[in-house]
């Protein structure tokens, strides 16, 4: 048996991913060099990485601001989504009314609200956190509600035969059933949270990657702009990986998380 077939699948797929990204950058570099593309249109990856590393502390500070806004907004959005979903499942009479309001909020273009919030609340982190929370809230709400409602009828029969109350059915059956759905929502919303924070910063901020991108864009300083984009892409990937890692540990009973040996 060859060594590669013995390696865990995740290690192999990581190497494949790194390999593909390297190829992508090499082609990009080659195109820029061969076609002699001006730096204000498309900088070479080498140029972007040089910019990134020579301005390390500057980018670190901006990243810290954006990530903390995104994380705070994500946490608030997730907590609010889970709490509201729980209330709606426990008190089903409220669902229609509240869902209409939630869809109303969801349908409002956040790009339009973001400048307003900045106008009302200033250039600080608060409007960014609110925008991020609004963006992440809805997918969590919808996924958790459907998770809690899509309980296998055989389980409901069992709990009813035990004379379990609505709260007990919620506590022991509906809530745990919804956890995998929560992770599905997180995988969608975590990258969205970063986008939310950046879009909000774009409309006016005292710091953060969105602010950096806006400044770089205004000055057509594309290496600076791309460096920020690279950080965001990497952070988004990292968010996603962390969530998948947590998912395989917390939702261990899901078929795709079961490690058959």
């Amino acid at each position, binding site marked *: 048996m060859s060594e590669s077939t013995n390696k865990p699948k995740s290690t192999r797929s990581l190497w494949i991913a790194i390999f593909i990204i390297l190829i992508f950058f090499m082609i990009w570099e080659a195109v820029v060099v061969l076609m002699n593309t001006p730096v204000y249109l498309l900088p070479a990856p080498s140029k972007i990485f040089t910019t990134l590393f020579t301005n390390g502390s500057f980018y670190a500070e901006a990243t810290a601001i954006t990530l903390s806004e995104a994380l705070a907004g994500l946490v608030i959005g997730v907590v609010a989504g889970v709490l509201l979903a729980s209330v709606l499942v426990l008190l089903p009479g409220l669902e229609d009314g509240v869902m209409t309001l939630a869809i109303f909020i969801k349908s409002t273009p956040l790009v339009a609200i973001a400048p307003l919030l900045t106008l009302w609340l200033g250039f600080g982190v608060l409007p960014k956190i609110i925008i991020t929370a609004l963006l992440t809230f809805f997918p969590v709400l919808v996924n958790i509600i459907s998770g809690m409602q899509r309980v296998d009828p*055989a389980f409901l029969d069992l709990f009813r035969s035990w004379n379990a109350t609505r709260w007990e059915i919620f506590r022991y059956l509906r809530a745990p059933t919804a956890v995998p759905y929560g992770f599905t929502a997180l995988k969608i919303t975590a990258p969205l949270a970063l986008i939310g924070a950046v879009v909000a910063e774009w409309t006016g901020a005292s710091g953060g990657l969105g602010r950096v991108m806006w400044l770089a864009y205004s000055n057509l300083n594309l290496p600076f702009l791309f460096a920020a984009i690279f950080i965001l892409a990497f952070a988004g990937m990292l968010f996603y990986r962390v969530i998948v890692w947590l998912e395989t540990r917390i939702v261990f009973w899901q078929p795709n998380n079961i490690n058959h040996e």
Partner: protein
Amino acid sequence: MRITIDTLSHTFYNGQATPALQNIHLSFESGKFVALIGSSGCGKSTLLRLMANLITPTLGSIHYNGHSSRQAVLDGQIAWLSQSPALLPWLNVEKNLALAQKFTQSNSPSRLSIGDALALVGLTAASQQYPFTLSGGMQQRLALARVLLQHAPVWLMDEPFAALDELTREKLTEELWQIWQVQMPAVFWVTHNIYEAIKLADRILVFSPQPGQIAADFQVEMPYPRHEDQVQFQNLLGQIRLILQQKELEQHV
């Protein structure tokens, strides 16, 4: 425990009215093994669900020692086992039983421990495993252990082993019968399998379909263990088959 079913009818409404059961009168004594047999859609599962108070009858009533089925469920008198083992996948074997115990044993005088229940169904070694690591047969054993913990005087079983392979099903049915003899509850066992019904039951109710009615009610007085090569066994098998075939034919005329 005396169970009486009086002028019971049930109709499902979803766009149109589908009568599922019509005018059922039955009474049962405790400690009897009753098999409910009939073709698909003949209302036998509906009767079981009505008995478990999972649905409310359109007409008529079910009483357990004079109490309503709702009261019987409140008092923990009824244990339910369906084709799906309904094991909570995030809890291991022991914790699945602990949850059942939490819900059911406050009503029960019995103090059968989780360990005892596991030993009775032969799952002691698997107590720390999660349901997804168990075979279909082991999962249904665990569901049976949950029923044992409840120590209810009435067991309602809706084709509990139907999804298992034949060998496992035979083995489990045999084990269930052994366990039944220890706790001696009134068992109501929905099945498609006439052989199983004759092997186990004290009483066999044969259903005719659309709407579900009792076509025949057999008291089986053969001693245990019963074998297919016994004359009485074959006679009863022939009679039940004939009734089911006649009812099937009447359906198509």
